[in-house]
Structure formats: C-alpha cells, structure tokens
C-alpha cells in the first residue's frame, strides 16, 4: 500500500468516506490465509476486481463474532504463522490502491507493544491502515482506541446491529467515523442464500435516530451477502456499500483444500469481486440517490 496522500493523518478519515462516493464494494479476507504469499495475491486480486475498501482481518484465536467459514480462515492464517507483526509487514508488502481497514479483536490491539492500544494504532497508521473494525469492542469500551485513532488520524468504524436501537443507536452514530458497518441480520458472519429484510429496516432506523452522521457517514451493509444480485438488492435498499467476507473466503478455502494454483484462485476472487462491485453499481442505478449521486 505504498500510497502518497494517506501519509498525512488528517486526510485519512476522508479517505474512507470518499471510497463510498459511488456504491462501494468492501471485501474481507483474513491476512495470511492460507499463507502469507498467496494471501497477498488474493488481496491484490480483490483490488483489481474493484474493491473500494479492503477489510483485512488480523486473526485472533477466539473470533466470537465469526461463523464457521471465517473461523476456519482464521485458523489457517494462524497456523501459517500470522502474528500482529507479520500482519503489519503484510500491509507494507501489499500493493493496492484502496484504503485498508484492520478488522481484529480487542485483545490483540491491547497487548501490542509498550503502550496498550496506542502502540498498535501507531504502528497500524505507519503501515497505512486507515481504520478499525473491532467486533468485540462496543462503543462503551472504545475510549482508549478512539483516543489513539484520533491521535493518529484513523477512523473507528462501529457495527450497528439489528438490535441496536434508540439511544444506543444515537450514541454509536455520534462516535462513528469512516463508515457505519450495518449488520444485515443477527448472528455471526457467513454467506447466506437470501439477504435479510433487515437491511431497509436498519437503514430506516439509522436515518431516524442517527443524527447528522446518518447522512454524513456512509452505510455499508454486511453479513451474508454472497452474490452480485444480493449486492444490488442491498444497495437498492439504500446502502452506500456492501461488505462481503465469507463468500470470498469460501473461494480461498476451496482453493486450499483442492490444492489449486494460487493464480487460479486469485482469478476467481477477482471475478467474484467484479460481480459484486457490478452488483453494487447496478443496485445504485436502480434507485433514486439524490443526496450522494
């Protein structure tokens, strides 16, 4: 991620939001799955396929928010030797031109370096990461991370769940930056055949109680999206972007299990990325989007 204008911390926050100027495709992969070098190629393939932001997972041994697909990805990455330090090297090696978001669990952020949290954020900023998604860190416990993000100019993305309502929603929306991760349905990550009806409902709720951030901060919908069609539907329902993880990890997993060549897997990922990106764009065209288009 040898980029130029993201060296200035002040600009980063806008970097993420800008990625949603058109309906965005936000893929997730676990760094180091199934090994360091293949994983680099896979992430780069996603960028080629049209990713607007990449959520790059730093694997944690207890991924309590993940379904079986990503649990296994995390296990593969861990056993291939992925560590926070190697993760940062991975980011440095990565040759993509899209913003990176670090997706990980709080304990890894907390344990790194001499100063809990701050050391990790500092190092993340140095390797070009622009934001964080931390599934086990609700807004209530996020002060330390928020401070460090502010210090180094990174975004702190929060998840809004179908159960997040009323005052909670207001509190989260007041703290969020970069984008809002709208969880499409209850449960853990994992590809689904059909996308839940919660999307429109959730976006509606955010619009009602989200305050100024509801209009200012993009809303990316994730959890279960696995096809261009679904991506289109989600965007049509009002999302500013789609987050896709398990459907992509499935391709990596299958490649690993069947021993396919890395470049073949990378090509499939790129094609899948393209389908999803095109879906998102198609969804955007199918609806009136006066505010952002």
């Amino acid at each position, binding site marked *: 991620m040898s980029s130029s204008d993201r060296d200035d911390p002040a600009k980063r926050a806008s970097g993420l939001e800008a990625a949603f100027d058109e309906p965005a495709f936000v893929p997730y992969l676990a760094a180091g799955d199934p090994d360091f070098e293949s994983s680099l190629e896979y992430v780069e393939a996603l960028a080629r396929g049209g990713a607007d932001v990449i959520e790059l997972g730093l694997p*944690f*041994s*207890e*991924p*309590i*928010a*993940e*379904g079986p697909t990503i*649990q296994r990805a995390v*296990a593969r990455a*861990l056993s291939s030797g992925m*560590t*926070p*330090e190697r993760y940062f090297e991975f980011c440095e090696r990565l040759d993509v031109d899209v913003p990176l978001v670090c997706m990980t*669990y*709080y*304990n*890894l952020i*907390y*344990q*790194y370096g001499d100063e809990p949290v701050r050391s990790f954020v500092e190092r993340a900023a140095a390797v070009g990461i622009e934001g964080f998604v931390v*599934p*086990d*860190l*609700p*807004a*209530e*416990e996020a002060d330390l991370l928020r401070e460090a993000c502010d210090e180094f100019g990174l975004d702190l993305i*929060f*998840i*809004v*769940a*179908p*159960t*997040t*309502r009323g005052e*909670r929603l207001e509190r*989260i929306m007041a703290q969020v930056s970069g984008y809002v991760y709208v*969880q499409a349905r*209850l*449960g*853990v990550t994992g590809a689904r055949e059909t996308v839940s009806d919660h999307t429109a409902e959730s976006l509606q709720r955010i619009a009602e109680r989200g305050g100024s951030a509801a209009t200012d901060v993009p809303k990316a919908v994730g959890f279960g999206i696995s096809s261009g069609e679904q991506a289109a539907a989600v965007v049509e329902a009002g999302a500013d972007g789609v987050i896709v993880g398990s459907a992509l990890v499935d391709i990596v997993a299958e490649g690993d299990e069947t021993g396919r060549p890395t470049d073949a897997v990378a090509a499939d990922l790129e094609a899948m990325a393209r389908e999803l990106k095109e879906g998102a764009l198609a969804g955007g065209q199918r609806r009136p989007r006066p505010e952002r288009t």
Partner: protein
Amino acid sequence: MSNSETKFGDYGGQYVPEALMPAIEELTDAYERYVLDNEDGFVDEFRNRLRDFGGRPTPLGRADQLSERYGHEIYLKREDLVHGGAHKLNNALGQVLLAKYMGKERIIAETGAGQHGTATAMAAAHLDVPCEIYMGRRDINRQRPNVFRMRINGAEVNPVDVGRGTLKEAISETMRDWATTVETTHYVIGSVVGPAPFPAMVRDFQSVISEEAREQAIERTGGLPGTVVACAGGGSNTMGAFAEFVDDEGVDLIAVEAGGSALDVDEERGVAPNSASLSIGEEGVLHGARTKLLQDGHGQIMESHSISSGLDYSGVGPELAHLVDVGRVTPATVGDDAALEAFHRLSTDEGIIPALETAHAFGFLEEALGGDDATKLAEPIVVNVSGRGDKDLEAVIEETEARELPNAPTMEVFE
C-alpha cells in the same frame, strides 16, 4: 434501584459484539430490578426454589479424618449435595428463573465439565424452558455421564468441534448462538466470567454458599473461619465461597487453580499445560471481560490444560483477578497428580468422592499442611466441596491407572 458493578478495578467491562449489547443492557436492567431489588418477589422465589428443588442449605460438616491428618480443624461446605451434584445449580436456577421473569423463551449455555450444562438443563426442565447446551467435543468424551444427564433432562447438546474442544471454544460458540438468537434467548453463563452484569450476578447467585457457611461456622465453631479454600476455574464456587467473607479482613481466602502438568507456557505451540490464569496469567480481554488470561506475547489465547474439565479454562472471573491484585485473595496452584491423589484421599478417608475440580482444593491442603515443611493455616479451615465426582469416575480410573498411584484402589472386579 441498586446499581450493578460492571468493573472490578480495571477488570470486567463489556467486550461483546454490538448485536449483544442491547440484550446485555436489558439483562443489566433485569438484574438490578429482580435480583438486587427483589422486584415481583424474584429473590423470594429463587430462595424457595433453591431450598425445595436445590436442596439448600447444604451442611458444613467437620472432616474428622483430615482434621486429624493435618492437625488443623477442617470443615467441609458440602456443595456436592446440591441437586445435580455441584454448586452450579445455584447460578443456573437463578439465571433460568430470571430469564423467565424477563420473558425469554429459550435458554442456551456452555459447559466444560458438564456440571453447568447439567445444572442448566435441570433448571430449564424444572421451569419448563427449552434449553440447548454447547460443549466441546473433547469434554463430551471425557464427561459422558453429564452428557447423558443433559439429554435425559431434555436439553439439546451441541458438540463444538472447533479448536481443542474444551470450555473456551464452547463459550465462544454459545456467544455466537446468542448473537443470532438474542431477542428470544437468554445465555446462562456458567461462571463469574463474561461481560457485565454476569460476573456480579453469578457471584450474587453463588454467594448463598458463603452466606450459609458464615452462619454455620459461627454456630458450629463459635466464630469466623480462619481460612476459606476453594478451587477456581472461572471462579464461581470460589466467589460464592468468598463473597460474604471479603469484608471480614481476618479471614484468609485461598483460590486454588489447576497447575496441570507444569506451571509454564509453551508459546511455540500456544499451549499452557495448566489453567493457572490467576497465578501466571496476564491482563487481557476475552469473552466479554478484561481479566487475567493465559495468552501468548501477541495476545492470542492459549489452550489451557487440566485433568479436570471444569478448571480447564484460559480465563478467570474479573472480580477474582481484582481481589488477587489487591491482595485480598491468595492464589495457589495444584497440579494434576496432586489433585488425583487428593481425590482418592478424600474418597477413602472421608467417604466423599469429590469432583476433580474440587480435588484441587484438597490437594492444596496436602501441599500446605501435609509435608515436612508444613506451614500453618489459620483455623478453622473451611474447604468448599464444589461438586461430587460421579461425572469423573471413568476419567479418574484411566488417569489413576496411567499413574500407578499408591493410594488408589484397583478396578479388577470387572471381568
């Protein structure tokens, strides 16, 4: 309205997926209203059911043979006599009842030794709520009788095949279920771990142990105990046995962890051959709380080990971690071998077959008072017999044979 504690010093908190936070807020509210303020007579019903269904109060009985062996007055708080065979029902019954007061329609729980799962299955059957239990595959295989019991009580048992298949994985998997079903489901967590309000709430449900023991000790011995000893996995029997004594500064509180096969950690393999998070763990965040953990230098959680499934956990309750930090609770460790020996000792000398978890507390007595360089402990000593060993019979026989323990009986009566 009383306020629940969410932090214990720096420990505790609520590190959970956002999807669960509303449920946790709802639970906090219910905890404060029903448990702390006895709204709708919750506490009265809970106490009555603990008595009529659970079999409380449990006795505090003098251990004649151990008292003689160690030259110390030793009393046993008999949680092994609680319905289901362990202290676990105190909490499970409280939470399942609370779930009913909250209008929840379904109960889920994790289990390690199967004792908490069994207790929850029993409480759920008793209170007529459907129930599913997550249990690691490895634990399923080493605690078969408890699996049978859960099934026979009508609970679903969901094997967890991830990782090493012990308690840590089962908790993670139960949290995943909860994240999916949170609107209708209550997660009955099995120890003083997890996000607030669980650690305080589970402690409150379990503190009936020390409430009774305190009264019984005064009645039986004319005063407070000098020392209270309890094993510690997550720490629920521990906090239950300690809670009412915490303010009695003169009472020594000793939490005995599983020393496993050795007290170090294998960073390379990510494995700790023990479950001694209070003694050798480092601060971190797991399963919803900041606490002491067995983790590697990167913050990855280590696989723990203990001969007893119920202690085999990489974390520990945040309040216990705090009480250790401030010097109120003294941690100790007892290894697999010493625990097994203590298991046999209590069985043959006192006629009480303890759970392997519990045996660690007695292993501590032997190590502290049994050797030549025996120290003195403040008397009388109350040991919390957290559970009975029926669930452990097969495992004990196997482990005993592997070790050729001198004080253990043989099993050749079977053909």
